[in-house]
Every structure is written in structure tokens, then in C-alpha cells.
């Protein structure tokens, strides 16, 4: 093999090795860092393993928000109008957190069936709803119209 050919081959091998290592590491990092999204109905159906980090999206049920007066603990209910999930959070809620609004919580199910949220995301403003919340709402809407149709 001519020297410059060998060099070219060397460079190509170097790049190929680098790329495959990088891709392998990326995929590994990806597989351990994704959060699945669930609706309250899916949670109620027992699809969630307690302790697994997930996201749940729904509406904050009217009248369900209970602030602890002594510290920053807060409890509320996220609903898709067919099922409810009790949410526990300790911290400051985002500006746009309101009753009757769509939110997404990040965290894990506790053993007692309460969702322990580590982060609460409210939709950004009146016009923009996150696709996750919208998907949850659409599913709930469909379910509600079906049950109403059945009775």
C-alpha cells in the first residue's frame, strides 16, 4: 500500500472508531435517561411501577390544591376527567400553575399511590399547550364522550 493511501485509511479508521464509540455511548446514555409519559387513566390502571421516574400530565382539579401553611408542601389532584392522581410536591409552584389548568409533573409513584413530584411544569401561557397535556386532554375527552354515550 502506498504511504498516503495508508494514511488516508488510518484517518478513516480513526474517524469510524470515534463515531461508533460515540454513537454507542449516546445510545447507552439515551436508554437510561428517558422519561415515559402517562395519563392519569393509565396510572389508575396500574401501568406504572412505583419508584420509576415518569411524567404525568393532566388538569389541576378545581378546589384540590392544598398548601401547607407551615412550609412549602403542597398537595393537589391531576385529572383527565375520568381518573384522578394525588400529587405531592414540596417547593414553589410555577407562575402559571392554576386550578383548571394543564400541567405536567415529573417524579415517581410512591408506595401509597401518591405521586411524588420532583418538578411541576405548567403550560407556558394561554395560547400554547404542551403536546403532552393536549394528548392527555384529548384522550380524556374521548373517554368522557364514550362513557356519556354509553349511559
Amino acid at each position: 500500500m502506498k504511504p498516503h493511501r495508508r494514511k488516508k485509511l488510518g484517518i478513516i479508521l480513526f474517524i469510524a472508531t470515534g463515531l461508533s464509540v460515540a454513537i454507542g455511548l449516546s445510545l447507552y446514555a439515551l436508554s437510561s435517561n428517558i422519561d415515559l409519559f402517562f395519563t392519569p387513566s393509565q396510572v389508575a390502571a396500574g401501568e406504572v411501577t412505583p419508584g420509576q421516574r415518569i411524567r404525568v400530565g393532566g388538569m389541576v382539579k378545581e378546589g384540590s390544591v392544598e398548601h401547607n401553611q407551615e412550609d412549602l408542601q403542597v398537595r393537589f389532584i391531576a385529572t383527565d376527567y375520568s381518573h384522578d392522581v394525588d400529587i405531592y410536591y414540596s417547593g414553589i409552584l410555577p407562575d402559571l400553575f392554576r386550578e383548571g389548568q394543564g400541567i405536567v409533573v415529573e417524579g415517581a409513584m410512591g408506595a401509597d399511590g401518591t405521586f411524588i413530584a420532583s418538578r411541576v411544569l405548567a403550560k407556558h401561557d394561554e395560547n400554547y399547550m404542551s403536546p403532552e397535556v393536549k394528548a392527555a386532554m384529548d384522550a380524556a375527552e374521548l373517554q368522557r364522550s364514550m362513557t356519556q354515550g354509553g349511559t
Partner: protein
Amino acid sequence: MIPELGNFALILAFCLSIVLGTLPIIGAARDNTLWMSLARPLTAGVFVFLSISLVILGYSFVTDDFSVQFVANHSNTNLPLQYKITAVWGGHEGSFLFWTWMLGGWMLAVAIFSKSVPEEFIARVLGVMGLICVGYTLFMLATSNPFDRVLPLPPADGADLNAALQDFAFIVHPPSLYMGYVGFSVVFAFAVAALLSGRLDAAWARWCRPWANAAWAILTLGLSLGSWWAYYELGWGGWWAWDPVENPPLITWLLGAAMIHSLAATEKRGVFKSWTVLLAIMAFASSLLGTFITRSGLLTSVHAFATDPTRGVYILGFLGLIVGGSLLLYAIRAPILKSEFGFGNWSREVFLLANNLILVVASAAILLGTLYPMVYQAVSGGDLISVGPPYFNTIFVPLMGILVVLLGIGPVARWKRTSREYLRQQLTRVAIAAVVLGVAIPVLLTMSVPLGTIGVCVLALWIMFSMLRDVASKVANKPSLMAGLKSLPVSYWGMQLAHFGFVMTMAGACLTSIYSIERSVLLQAGQQADLGRYTFVFEGTRPVQGPNYIADEGTIRVLREGEFLRTLHPQKQLYTASNTPATHMGIDGRFLRDLFVTLGDPRDNGAWSMTLYVKPFVRWIWLGTIFIAFGGILAVTDKRYRRYKVSKQAAADEQPAEARLAGEH
């Protein structure tokens, strides 16, 4: 009537860009001088009509013309004047007009400042940009016209500008980000013109380099301003969230960084030609992808504009057409772009190659993480997932670490051939000094062994010392220090400055991640809370009336180790027109640390929830980017980009490029 004129101007701009996108390119192919010479006047025409359009939209905002749908959705009579004007880019339609106008601006700049580039080449460049402009204007006219009316019954008042956007940073962040983003279409046009004409030599690289540097430097500022804005406006102490809409500009930025380094090798040594062209195409494609992600509403993001599938389909089609077309052209023409020189194992070319590899891998990994939720949803049949920051950090931080290690060697290495002996002689003492001081300083300051901090210090000192060593050895055989420093070209200082800024940003990012502390508390007036060395005393709140909002303003005295430092005034605001709450942090920013407080909400007993933050070194992140951008701009002003009047044959240019090698980096 006035908004219709704006619409009319937009249609005229569209028609002129069609002519610009066809005649000059055909003229260049057929050697028709008349058709080629149309490029500059047509460019001016497109820019003028886009400007008219933009000014009219601005006029509609200032005069509160709520019969225009876009104005009604994004303004309000009580909105302060500066936000009425800037509300032009406060939503999808207007911001796209602004974006297209930026493209017009870059086109005009190319037409004016490329007098030394051959007519035939500039006709192709402007023609390609004209085609891009056709795509943008058609997109607006077909799917998102900012001049659409709400007739016959316009609302009495507008819905108001999103409260989070009513901020100084909103006046400067979108323009700089867009300008940098759109600037990459100039480089793309140069690359496509090179493929069309088959002319890709050192002269080409020299024409192209100032544009690439300028676009990249401005994008740096745009990204940095966005990060700074997120930091103090959203008020949760974060400066980068790996949000699906933050990521595409970062991908473009990384590819752009790879491109300007590869361009350096192309200009100086005639190597990596086809790779440079590929990077130019990829950088531009990533900017279009960013547009697609932001404006299609496909991904969950704070930036997502209102969802409309037709827009997404249009941009995806445009993206496919542009990228597919240019890659096809690349596949056909790239084989004729032969690299001219070989290079040795430890040459600067090799280090630039490594730089490019790292930057491209980093951008590919970020792209993967950004698009993965979308792909997963499609493959799994609707399951939604999100990819969290840990993924991005796992990939990005080690890659940047390697990049910084190599950054200490690359600029010292010589073009073409560098002996290992030379590198060892230059850098052994630098490495020892960096390790010794990098370990000693943090250990002595903290009286412990903070591994992360030691790593940051060693790497930062490694770069600093290697830079000084490089300057020292460059001026060593000059008659005096001053004469030596003056003999170094401006672009060399630009490079050093940008590298310094990069290290500062990286160091700031790492140190602030290590040392930041925060605490959420519930305080009644008179109560206090400690955080680190600081004590925050809550004095209570009072109501405040803003121009278009009402607010509760808190008063918090900050003490450091018992001594009064200053008073902070965070606000919890309520924008009355849209009934939207917003927080405004009370901040004390210093070179070495930021302190700030954000108010949460009040309890029945008058207590307020609030979060206290101490963030050391956070300012370095943005300060560093100013150095990066300034370095990039400095490199653009290097006189060699103006000195040469270029003749038709490339060979004449190769000579001076070679001759200059000795004197430069």
C-alpha cells in the same frame, strides 16, 4: 389599507426573489453577463420591499391596528412603545417576516462587500440566496401571513404580548439569534456556488471565511443572550435546559465552529475542501431544522409557537428540497474538489481534524437526543417520552473536556509537519505548570480536595499557559516585545481571544454547576433564612403599579457573615390585559458570584414562599461568550480579507497564501 400595502410589498419581494433565484444562476452557467449583472440590483430590490413590509407591520403595531390578526394577538393599547415595536417578532408570523428580512440584509451585505469576488461567482451566491428567499416568502404568503385581517369585526383591544417576553432581553435576543442563524445561509450559498462553478480553492475560502466568522460570532451572542434571559427572566437559576428549541441553535453553533476551523485549513493549506462544503450544508440544514422544530409544534418546549401542521409540512418539504438538492449536487461535484497537500501526524491539520470530529459528534449526539422523543412516538405508536438533561450532560461534558485538552496543543502545532520533539519542547513546562498550579490553588483555597474544581483549574490553566507560550515563541526572534506583538496578525489575536472566551465559558459553566446552592423557604415579614455564608432577611412586601401590570414587591436585606451587603427587590407581577402572572427576580450580580431571590406566592397568614440562590461564577458563562464573539469579529477585520483584488485564476492566489504561512499561527 396600510397593511395591504405591506402584503403587496411582500408579494413583490417574492416575485423579485424568483427572478433573482433564476436569471443570475442561468446567466452564470451560460456566461451571459447581462443576466449575471442583474443579481445586485435585484438583491437591493428584494431587501427594499422586505423592509417596507417590515416597517408597515411595525407601524400597525405602533398605531394599535387590531384589525390585523397578528397585531391583535400580540399587542395591547397599554403595552409600552418599545415592546409594541419589538412585538413584531413576538409571534410566529411576524418573527418569520423579521427572519426573512434578515436574510435580505445579509444578501445586501454580500452584494455590497464582495466587490473583489468575480461577477460570475457572486451572481451564483446571490442567486442561491434568492432561492432561499423564495422559499421563505412563499411560506409566509401561503401559511402564515402577518398581514391577515380580522374583518369585519376587529377586537377593541389586543390580547397583549406574552408577559415573559416583556423584557429588555426580548429586544436584543431574537435579532441577534436570527441574524447569526440566517448568516449561515450566506456560507451555504458560497458552498453551493463553489459546487456549481467547480471553483473551490484558497481564494474561495478567503471570500467565505469572513462571512462564516461573522455569522458564527453573532450566533454566539444570540445564544448567550438567550441563555442570560432564561436565567434571569424565568428565575429558576438555570442558564441552559437542553430544551428541544435551545438545542438546534447549539447544533448550528457547534457545526459552525467546526466549519470555521475547517475553513482555516482550507484557506491556508488547501485541505478538507469537500468536508468544509459538507459542513456548510449541514450547518444550514440544522438552522432550517431548528426553524422546523420551533414552528411545527412537534416537540414540547417553552419556545413552541402555536401548532399548525401545514406549516410543519411546508418547512419539512423545504428542508428536504434544500438539503436533498445540495447533497445531490455535492455527490455529483465533490469528487472534483481535490485536496492538494498531504500533512504529517502531529501537524495542525490533524488537530483541526480532531476538533471537527469532536464538534460534529457532539452535535450529532445532541440532535439524537432532541429528535428521539419524536422518533420514539412514531415507532411505538404514540407513546410520549422526554429525554432529560442527564443524557446531554453525559455526552457533552466529556467531549468538551477532550476538546479543551486538544485546544492547548492545536494552536501551537505547525501546519503540514510538526515534530513531536517541537511540541514536547513547547508544551512540557506548560503542562507541568498547569497541573501543579491547577491542583495547588483549589486545594489551598478550600483546604480540601475538590476533584471537579481541580479538573477545571488544570484545564483552564493549561490553555492559558499554552496561549502565552505560543505568543512568547512567536515574538521571541523579533527585535522587541512590542514589535513582536504588533507583527502578529489581527486574526491571530481574534483566535486567541475566542479560545480564551471559550475556556472562560466552560470554566464558568462547570464551576457554577459545582458550587451553586439554592433553598426554598416560607418566610413571614421579619423572619430570615441562611444560605451558605449569606443571610436573607425578609422585610415584607408592598404593592407596586407598573405600566401594564400590578405587582407585589418584596424587600429582602442580604447579610454576609452578619454584615449588611445590599437590599434586593424581587417582584411577583400580574399582567392585567392577559391576567398572566410573572416573576421578576431581585438580583445582586458580581464578577465572582450572583445572589438572587424569586418570590413564590403568599399564604393566608401573610407569609411568602421564596427561593434563594447563590450562584458563584455564573457570569463567566456570558462574559466568555462576549470574548468568543469579539474574537470572531476581530478575525473578520483582518486586512488580508480586503487586501487582495482577486483575479480570475486561482493559482495567483495560492502563492501569497503559502508565503504568509510562516508569519501566522
